[in-house]
């Protein structure tokens, strides 16, 4: 599957079936939004709840993707930021009686600061060493949450139970439908921000650092600052997802945020496509639903089935779902060209 050299006579606008790519993209986006809007009215509450969780995971994976996909830093510790976000929300709601809406900006700030501070020493570490340092964080957080110093706040091993919010303003939605709507609104805002970020000057700086740090610093980019900032923003995204997750599950406990979660986010990142923003949605749905599918195939061998599915995915789409879409569309563009 060799990549063909770029056609020099390529028309300025790539088309499939005579329709420009940008139109295709907008159509896909439009259909996606319509589907998201229709879901709460046609599905059972339980499925709405599952899709809410999948979107929450997608936001967390988006956070990881900003770090790994666009800035080239590895993390096996994003479960820690997810946990910090979740506990921020839970403690605010349960211990301080603050409305759930306000927990999101709070979780965002706390996680940004936490991520930024963690990013500073992590600057000295590259590649696998950074992965290991973040791994240590993922291992440490669940135990720290149990420690007696913070037990008064975190509830220790028992965790914290919070009350699921109802729809405001007397909207005729049940709590699952409302939480779904709330999550979708937050998600859309965060995806738009992420899209703008990576297309901005800052985004180009991040990508430059990923591709060639020395060249980037030669161009006058403050590599250290940008790397730490990216860590902060990445933690912010994952932390907001954690807060949403805590509200949706209405319970937090240290056992919810083990290393398994960090690995799940990593899997979602790779399956969705490293460096792709829409791909993270695929990642979120994969992380939530594929283990269930594996279990329905064989209870005793669920882990093995999951492994096989994962291998197949990696084999069939080595660059993730986003890579597959890119490959198919570029094929179609070329077909259109040779055909027409």
């Amino acid at each position, binding site marked *: 599957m060799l990549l063909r050299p770029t056609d020099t006579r390529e028309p300025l606008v790539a088309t499939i079936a005579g329709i420009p790519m940008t139109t295709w993209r907008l159509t896909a986006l439009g259909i996606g939004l319509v589907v998201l809007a229709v879901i709460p009215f046609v599905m*059972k*509450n*339980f*499925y709405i*709840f*599952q899709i809410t*969780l999948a979107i929450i995971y997608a936001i967390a994976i988006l956070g990881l993707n900003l770090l790994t996909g666009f800035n080239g830093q590895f993390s096996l510790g994003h479960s820690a930021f997810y946990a910090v976000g979740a506990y921020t929300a839970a403690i605010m709601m349960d211990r301080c009686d603050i409305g759930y809406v306000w927990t999101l900006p709070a979780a965002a700030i706390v996680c940004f600061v936490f991520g930024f501070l963690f990013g500073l020493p992590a600057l000295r570490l590259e590649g696998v060493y950074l992965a290991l340092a973040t791994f240590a964080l993922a291992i440490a957080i669940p*135990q720290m949450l*149990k*420690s*007696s110093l913070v*037990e008064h706040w975190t509830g*220790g*091993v*028992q*965790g914290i*139970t919070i*009350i699921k919010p109802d729809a405001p303003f007397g909207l005729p939605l049940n709590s699952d439908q409302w939480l779904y709507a709330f999550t979708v609104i937050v998600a859309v805002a965060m995806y738009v921000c992420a899209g703008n970020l990576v297309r901005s000057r800052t985004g180009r700086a991040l990508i430059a650092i990923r591709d060639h740090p020395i060249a980037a610093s030669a161009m006058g980019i403050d590599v250290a600052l940008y790397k730490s900032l990216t860590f902060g923003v990445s933690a912010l995204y994952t932390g907001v997802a954690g807060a949403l*997750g805590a509200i949706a*599950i*209405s*319970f*937090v*406990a*240290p*056992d*919810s945020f*083990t290393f*398994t*979660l960090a690995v799940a986010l990593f899997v979602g990142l790779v399956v969705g496509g490293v460096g792709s923003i829409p791909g993270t949605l695929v990642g979120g749905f994969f992380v*939530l639903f594929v283990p269930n599918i594996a*279990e329905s195939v064989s*209870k*005793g061998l*669920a*882990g093995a089935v999951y492994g096989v599915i994962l291998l197949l995915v990696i084999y069939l789409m080595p660059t993730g779902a986003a890579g597959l879409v890119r490959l198919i569309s570029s094929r179609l563009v070329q077909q259109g060209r040779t055909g027409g």
Partner: protein
Amino acid sequence: MQMNKRMLLASIAGLAVAVAGPALAQKKYSPGASDTEIKLGNTNPYSGPASAYGLIGKTIDAYFKKVNAEGGINGRKITFISYDDAYSPPKTVEQVRKLVESDEVLFVFQPLGTPSNSAIHKYMNSKKVPQLFVATGATKWGDPKNFPWTMGWQPNYQSEGRIYAQYLIKNHPNAKIGILYQNDDYGKDYVKGMKDGLGEKAKTMIVSEQPYETSDPTVDSQIINLKASGADVLFNVTTPKFAAQAIKKAHEIGWQPIHLLNNVSNSVGSVLKPAGLDAAKGVLSTAYLKDPTDSTWDNDPGKKEWLAFMDKYYPDGDKTSSFTVYGFTVAQTLHQVLKQSGDDLTRANVMKQAASLKDVKLPMLLPGITINTSASDFYPIEQMQMQKFTGERWELFGPVLSGGEGS
């Protein structure tokens, strides 16, 4: 005359009800039950760090295969739907919601783990779906006033603590007790049980309390402190790793107290062997199920029944594990509840019947231990028997003790 007439009327009415009873007792169903089927939901950790417990879920599944092969319960087949939650609370919430809202089970039976059950506690009670016989020993599962849809099964930690207290008061009334406990709800439950059981004497008998954190590397310093306090009884409320450390350390420093080891950590394979069988000799603990490896029960009809079940319906299952005994016995308890529920398979009636178990004897419960519940008592098993480690195996001794409140 008047009186007689009234009595006559009453007895006629009574007779009418008695005769019409079975005919009138309409079949009533909540979601998950029908003329032919009863659907049960369950979560167990089949994968992840606690996957050893998955054996319980598999045993229960095998048990209901046996029930179905023998014609079901009141003519209805049991469909046992068990999902993996990997001991992760968010996954438990997801799977339990799937069971209740998508599979539409009649109730959720034996979800395993304290955090997992905490995560669904409110949900089950707001949905009014029974969360029946949960697989955890925390004391909070028996709170019918606030959580009328949740019930525990195994002896809870406080009951066990009271049993040790009874033992001490009877046999060592002048003991000086040192307590080593894990500093969380689990550890504190045990300590509370012990103190409640000792009553007035708690203040004078308990000479030292040493908590430890799960993050502590060892409990060595706590053991040294306890010895220094002059205690001659060690109440060891620890999880397996720390239990082994405590037994070993006490032996190393030559401290030989009356050693009470909580039931949580009395596994020979995973605690006493690593601690050193010599060091563990003489340790006391409690039991409520028959130990499948104990040759005392070789000719016991109860054990034979369990073995026959294992051979026929779960031949791959581990016959030396207490988990298969546990799964078998808890499934039998549910069998009894469903039998009692008759044709009224509503969620409310299942809960009502679960709270109306009277002197239920089961083959793998220790002789003398029975299951009792009532509208205000949501702790099915509260009796245990003391046992002593001989250096090779546990040996039961003394009477069956009851750890129920006020006993």
